[in-house]
Structures are given as C-alpha cells and as structure tokens.
C-alpha cells in the first residue's frame, strides 16, 4: 500500500499522541497519526478523571496553547471539583471525573476534524533513517510512510506485559496487543532504556454496589472547568461514592502477598516511593486500619465503577475476596480484574528540551515512553513534541518553555536534566515559581506565545484578547485611585496609618480586602464584571511575592543564557570527576543553568565548566 508523504508522523493515539498530532496540524504541517486501532483514540487506560494538583495546571496550559485536552475534558466532565478550593489560588487545581465514552467520542471528533491530519491504522515496526536523519516509518505489513519528523507516543505499549497475579501476557492495555517490534528496534538502537510498572484496580459493576451504605461526594456547586473557552458542563453531573478498606481486607491481602505480581517478584525494577497498589499500602503502612476508596462512575450510562485506591496485581480470586470484604461492596461483581503493566521507557536525559533525540535527528519522544505517568503529563509533552516536530519539518527553530513560564517547562526540564527513577508525576511543589505559574493565569502566560507560534486559533485569540483588554482596563481604573489612609478608612478599609497614598492595586494586597470593598472609592468600578474582579484579586494577592522572585527569575535567565554547545568536551576539563563528566555526557545539558540541575553537580564543577565556556567564547569572539 502506498502512503502519501507527510511532514510529521505521530505513532500512538493516546493522550500524548492526540495532542502531538493536533499541535502539528495546527502548525500547518501535514500530519499522520498512526495507531494500532483507530477506535481506541481517546481511551483512558486507568482512572476516568482528568486534572488535580499540578496535573490540572498542565491541562490549563495545554488549553491556553489551544490544545485539545481541556475542551474534551469539559465536554466529558460529569463531576467537577476544584481541589484546595479553600486554599490560595496558586495551589488550586481543577479536576473532573470523565464519562469515558464521551471523552473518547469527543477526542476522536476533534482529531478527525482537524485539517491536514490523517489517521492511519497500522503497526509501526521500524523507524527509517538515512544520512543520520529520520525519514519515516515502516509498518508491519511492509509498507513505508515517509515523514520529515516522527513523534513516538507509544504509552504503555512498548514491550508491554500485563500481570494479573501469576498470569502474565503481552499487551499494551487490557484487551489490546503490545508494540513489540518497535520495542525491539529501539533497544537495538542502543538508546538508554528501562522498565517501569504501574497498576490499575478491578472495575466493578455499579449495579451490584450497596450505595445506600456509603458516603457520597458530589461535585462543586459552581463547577470550575478546564478550558478558558468553556462556560458550563454539558454532560449530566454525578456524585462519587466513598468507602474504606478494613482490617479484614488487609488480612486477605497480606495472606496472599506472594501471589501478587508486583510483590511476588515477577516484575523487575525498583518500586516507586509512593504506593502504587493496595498491597504497598497494606505492607508499608500496616498501622493504618482503613484506606479510603473513591468509587468513580465511568460514565453516565455506564454501570462500570472505577474504585480509586485499590490498584492491584493480585490474582482475580483474591481480588473478589478482598473487594467483597469492603463496606458497600459485599455483593460487588468484578467486570474486569485489576492488573499491573510493565513497559519500556527511554531515559529522558537522552532528550533535548525540544523532546528530540539528538542521536536520531527528526525523532521526538513524548509521554509515558519518557518515564512519566498520567494523561496530563503525557498530553503536555505531546503538545511540545508535536509542535517541535512540525517546526523542524517546516524549517523553523524549536520552542522551549522555561521553568518560570510554565509547568510544561518545569516537567521537561526535570525529565531531561534529572531523568526518572520512578514514574514522574507533576506536583505543584516541583515548581519553584509556583506563585506565578497558576492555573488561573495560564492563558495570560501562554496564549500570546501560542499565537506567536501560530498554534492559537482565531476563536481563542479573540476571546483571550477581550479578556486581556478587560483586565487592562480594570487595572487602569484601579491604578487611577489614589487613597490616603484616611480615605481608605472612610471607605471601610483598614490600612496602615502611614500617610502613604495607595492605588487600588496596592489596597487589594491588604489581607481581607476584596474588589467590592473598593467600590466606594470609585463608582466606575461597578461596571467591571465579576470574573475580571476575581482575577485581579488573585494577582494582587501574590504581587509582592512575585516581585521578590523577580531576582531569582533574572538569575535563571542569566544562566540559561550561557549555552553549552553540542559536543562540549566534558572529559577534557581538568578537575571534573569522572562520575560527573560521565553524567554530563549522558545528559548533554543545553545551558549552564541546566548543567547546574544535574544530580551531583558541585559548585566547583560548574565553575570549571563556566571557565571553559568563557574561554571558548573568547576564542570565538
């Protein structure tokens, strides 16, 4: 079969693949999404939910760049909860349960509707190269597809092996075959690879659960959606159920530990520091009598329940026993047993910040293949990889997001500088500039950048411009206020009696002062809409802290400006320990700042690198 030539080929139609294909298509590159099964595009392998703390921030950023995840999650959202609602805006993260069927349908519709994007069903067996560059892929049926750039977003499918108890079989997801030919090929290329594992709980039949015994968790009364373009949920809203394991549950699990694939020693590799399975929880935190379980409906018209909190790789018969020991689940039927899956990943230190593999120019990696876990982490990488793959094919320079610009930047920098020892998950604590990188300002941070890059469409740009104008106008009015402490007091505000005049923004920085409190000072403020009011309040809250961090941002930028050329000879630096130079050769940091983040880097080592860099510059200049 003869395929047309493309600019970009995306391999794998999961969360990373969809964002990659969409970003590539938006960049006006001719894109093909190659998948084992076109009807699996948009499937959620595990938890039927999107977002959270850190994860929710990533979704907002993807949306700000006009990616698909946010809008699809809103369309499929059946229970919305803003986590940390009572805490500060910087640590609030939107989250939503998804109707899996709606999510899949919506994602497929998005993908199919994109111009310049073809979906091709087939198994990629090999990546083709010529003169040291990627030229396309070869399918298992022997046909070849040419592409200037190739993005690998294979998820858990590379060399995927599924374990239930002591039974195991190859598979990328339950019921779907693994990508083994490709796995073999990548290993033969000598790429630094490893194995990771993750687990999933048994799926239960909701019709066999005694809901009346259980606490219920409804969504927020005023749902907070993901996309900046969304207004309200469209799907019917549901509640989740809450139950707990008990000592009887734990006894059953403990008695069968040797039959657990993850505990029985059938899966290699060091386990993560957190608890990926109920077995881990029971063993490591034995003193806990009860572990919480969220019973998450997989869809409005779907009886399947996803019990979040009891991931396992115990045999099916043990699963039914321990499930039935749980309150409310005494008569529960298991529709699909839980299982563990181990899969190949490529050490992300081998990647550039553009997610390209320098040893295979034109090849980009994104998602779980880089050692991350989570749909959102995968999607964000997919967007960057697809964007850069397209730009390379169109002869444009790559794009990099910095740590002070986006969580996307934090993640990619963490991966490429430090690598992973366990599946990487995003948390707000990973971002040193957390106070600036908020979910509420993702659009202000990234939509203009996206527009410059050509990946933000007109609809979004119009909506954003309107919002930005509204904010500027409002801030202008606030800055025009000049209130003495006496005037402020008269308006009911308590400020320092220091004789200083303050504008509206400065007044808002005082604890407990809301936008509404300022109305007496300027009746014109009445006209400003609530969303704008709330946004300005959020910004005022952190203003002084963000200013204080400006210095750190400057330092970061200054050290980011020291580029380390490709092929920089670390071994030639006298005084650099072998251990350190080996690591540096492995990581290939692009800037002095990134070199500083390599594990084990010492100040003395950095000094030596800087000295050599300066010498190089002097020679060049």
């Amino acid at each position, binding site marked *: 079969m003869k395929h047309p030539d493309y600019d970009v080929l995306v391999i794998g139609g999961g969360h990373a693949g969809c964002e990659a294909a969409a970003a590539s298509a938006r960049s006006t590159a001719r894109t093909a999404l190659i998948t084992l099964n076109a009807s699996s595009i948009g499937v959620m392998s595990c938890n039927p939910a999107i977002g959270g703390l850190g994860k929710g921030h990533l979704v907002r950023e993807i949306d700000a760049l006009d990616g698909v995840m946010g809008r699809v999650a809103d369309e499929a959202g059946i229970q919305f909860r803003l986590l940390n609602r009572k805490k500060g805006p*910087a640590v609030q993260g939107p989250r939503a349960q998804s109707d899996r069927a709606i999510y899949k349908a919506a994602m497929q519709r998005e993908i199919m509707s994109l111009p310049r994007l073809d979906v091709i069903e087939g198994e990629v067996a090999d990546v083709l190269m010529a003169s040291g560059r990627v030229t396309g892929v070869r399918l298992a049926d022997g046909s070849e597809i040419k592409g200037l750039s190739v993005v690998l977003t294979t998820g858990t499918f590379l060399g995927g092996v599924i374990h239930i108890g002591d039974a195991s079989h190859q598979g990328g997801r339950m019921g779907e075959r693994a990508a083994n030919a490709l796995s073999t090929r990548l290993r033969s290329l000598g790429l630094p690879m490893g194995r990771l594992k993750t687990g999933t709980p048994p799926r239960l039949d909701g019709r066999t659960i005694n809901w009346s015994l259980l606490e219920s968790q409804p969504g927020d009364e005023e749902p907070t959606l993901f996309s900046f373009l969304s207004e309200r949920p469209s799907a019917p809203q549901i509640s989740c159920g809450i139950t707990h394991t008990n000592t009887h549950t734990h006894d059953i699990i403990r008695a069968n530990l040797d039959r657990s694939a993850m505990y029985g020693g059938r899966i290699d590799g060091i386990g993560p520091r957190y608890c990926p399975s109920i077995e881990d929880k029971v063993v490591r935190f034995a003193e806990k009598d009860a572990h919480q379980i969220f019973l998450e409906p997989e869809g409005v018209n779907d009886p399947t329940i996803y019990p979040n909190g009891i991931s396992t790789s115990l045999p099916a018969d043990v699963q039914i026993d321990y499930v039935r020991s749980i309150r409310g689940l005494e008569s529960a039927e298991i529709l699909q047993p839980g299982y563990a899956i181990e899969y190949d990943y490529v050490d992300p230190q081998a990647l550039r910040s553009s997610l390209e593999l320098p040893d295979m120019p034109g090849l980009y990696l994104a998602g779980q293949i880089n050692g991350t876990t989570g749909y959102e982490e995968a999607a964000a990488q997919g967007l960057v990889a697809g964007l850069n793959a397209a730009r390379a094919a169109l002869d444009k320079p790559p794009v990099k997001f910095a740590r002070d610009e986006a969580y996307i930047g934090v993640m990619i920098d963490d991966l490429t500088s430090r690598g992973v020892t366990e599946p990487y998950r995003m948390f707000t604590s990973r971002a040193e500039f957390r106070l600036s990188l908020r979910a509420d300002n993702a659009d202000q941070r990234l939509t203009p950048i996206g527009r410059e890059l050509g990946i933000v469409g007109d609809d979004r740009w119009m909506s954003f411009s309107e919002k930005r104008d509204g904010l500027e106008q409002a801030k202008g009015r606030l800055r025009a206020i000049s209130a003495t402490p006496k005037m402020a007091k008269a308006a009911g505000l308590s400020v320092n009696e220091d004789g200083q005049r303050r504008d509206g923004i400065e007044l808002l920085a005082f604890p407990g002062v809301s936008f509404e409190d300022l109305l007496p000072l300027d009746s014109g403020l009445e006209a400003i809409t609530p969303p704008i009011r709330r946004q300005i309040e959020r910004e005022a809250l952190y203003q002084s802290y963000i200013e204080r961090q400006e210095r750190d941002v400057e330092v970061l930028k200054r050290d980011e400006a020291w580029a380390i050329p490709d092929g920089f000879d670390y071994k030639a630096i006298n005084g650099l320990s072998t251990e350190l130079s080996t690591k540096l050769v492995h990581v290939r940091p692009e800037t002095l700042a990134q070199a*500083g983040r390599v594990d084990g880097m010492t100040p003395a080592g950095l000094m030596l690198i800087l000295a050599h860099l300066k010498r190089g510059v002097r020679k060049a200049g």
Partner: protein
Amino acid sequence: EALGDLIEAETEAQRKLAVSNYSGALRDYVGGLRQNLLRAIALTEASIDFADEEIPEGLERQVAHALGESEKALAKQIAGFEDARRIRTGIEIAIVGAPNVGKSTLVNALVGDDIAIVTDIAGTTRDVIEARLSIGGQLVTFLDTAGLRETDDPIEREGVRRAQKRAEAADLRIFLSDTGLFEGKELFQDGDLTVLSKGDLTGEAGAISALTGEGLADLQRRLKDKVSDMTSGAGLVASLRQQELLLGAVAAVQTAQFANESGGQLELVAHHIRSCLTKLEQVIGRIDVEDVLGEIFSSFCIGK
C-alpha cells in the same frame, strides 16, 4: 547572585563545611537543622499537593514545632557571631600596666621579636605597638600600650589616652605589675588576666620573668585556652556574607512561623521555608523537591 558569582563562595564554604564536619557535634547540629527544615517543608507541601489523599489534620502544629526547633538552632549560630568575627579579624589582647613594668619585654618574649623598644626609662613606648602572632592557629594581635600614669607631657598624655581606649576595646586584657599593685584596674573586665612580672628580680611566687623565661610557658598555655574559648562558639559561620545569609535565614523561618500560626496560606508558608532553605544551602546542603517528596512518601500513605 548569578551561579557564576555564587560558585566561588560556595566552594569556600563547602570546604569549610567539610572541615567543620569532622567534629561530631557540628555534624549532629547540621543534621538536626536539616531534618527539622525538611520536615517543615515536607509537611507543608503534603498539605498542599496531597489534599485529596488522606493527609491527617493538624499538621500545622507539627510544622510549628519543626520551625521552632530550626529557629533555636539558628539562634545558636547567631550567638556565635562574635566569636566568628574574632576568627576573621583576629583577637586583640592588650597588655595594661604602669610604665616600665615590663610590658614590652613580655610582648617581645611572647612574640620572639624585638618589636617594641625596650629601655629602662619610663615612657619609652610612645604609641600602641601591635605585634601579631598565631596562637593555636588563631591570629592574635598583642597591643603593647603606653604605660598608664599621670603625666604633664602632652605627647605622653595622648599616648596614655590612646592606650586606655585600645585596651578597653580589646578582646582581652593582661594586667601586668611588678609590685602587686595593678594600674588601670578600672579597665578590668571579666575573664581578664593578671600577671606579676620581673619574677627574676622580685622573687615573687607565681611571677613570670620574661628574661629567664620562668612562668612563660604557663602563661602561653593560659593564653591558648583563652583564645580557644573566645572562638569555639563560632560554629559554621565565619564570613560576613555567610552571617548575612544566616540572619536572612532566621528571618525567613520567623516569617514562616508567623504565617503558619496565623493560619496563613500554605503556599506562602512554603515560600518562606524555601527562602530559608536557599540561604542555608551552604550550611545544610541542598534540599530539593525530590528530598521533600521522599520525606512525604515515607511519612504518608500516598496512592498512585
């Protein structure tokens, strides 16, 4: 400061730290401070990032405790600043006494040089003469002062005045007398030494003789102990820059404490703790997010 600037300072500090870590007490101190701060930031971050997991209530109290312990430890370091300054600028020991009691002779004997002009005529040492030497690895400056006495000579009077001022400001004074009557007693401060001189002439028990060397070794030993006492509290902080960092660190801890106790926003408590951690990096080493996550995952049952 940019990485480039900071690097040199860090190198020096780390070298110092490596040396100071040879002492078990200091190693414990550093380890304790690090653990307390790690605990404080880990508990705070756990309350933020794992709000939807089963994180126990009331962690602010534990955070308060950890911050309190850290503050105490840092205060101890700050108390040692005086000692640290002495290490940096050298300890000044003033020799005080009436004219011609043998001050210059003593200084010369201790230093082993003929720095001061030694004659038998009262009022020979006109200026304050400084003689430097190392006692037990510490820089010490002896101030050989003009003999204290009433005088009409305006030059001498100026000399006496200067002598008194320097003696007062010195870290230690040695009061010298050959008769047992000590001039300048009013300058005496706790811990100062009194020494009888010219033992070879007076035959006084316990008196030293700079000429014969009698009692000199004993005096040197006493001085060594004194010097050690005066610098032992210096701890880890020697440079002025590091002291600034420490003062900044304790201020950050206090701000974090206040925010935590007044129910302030957790991300701001975390911000202040992190600010403290950055300032203390030279002392306790880097604490990065992987360290924090490790502490969180081993303390709380966090699922996937």
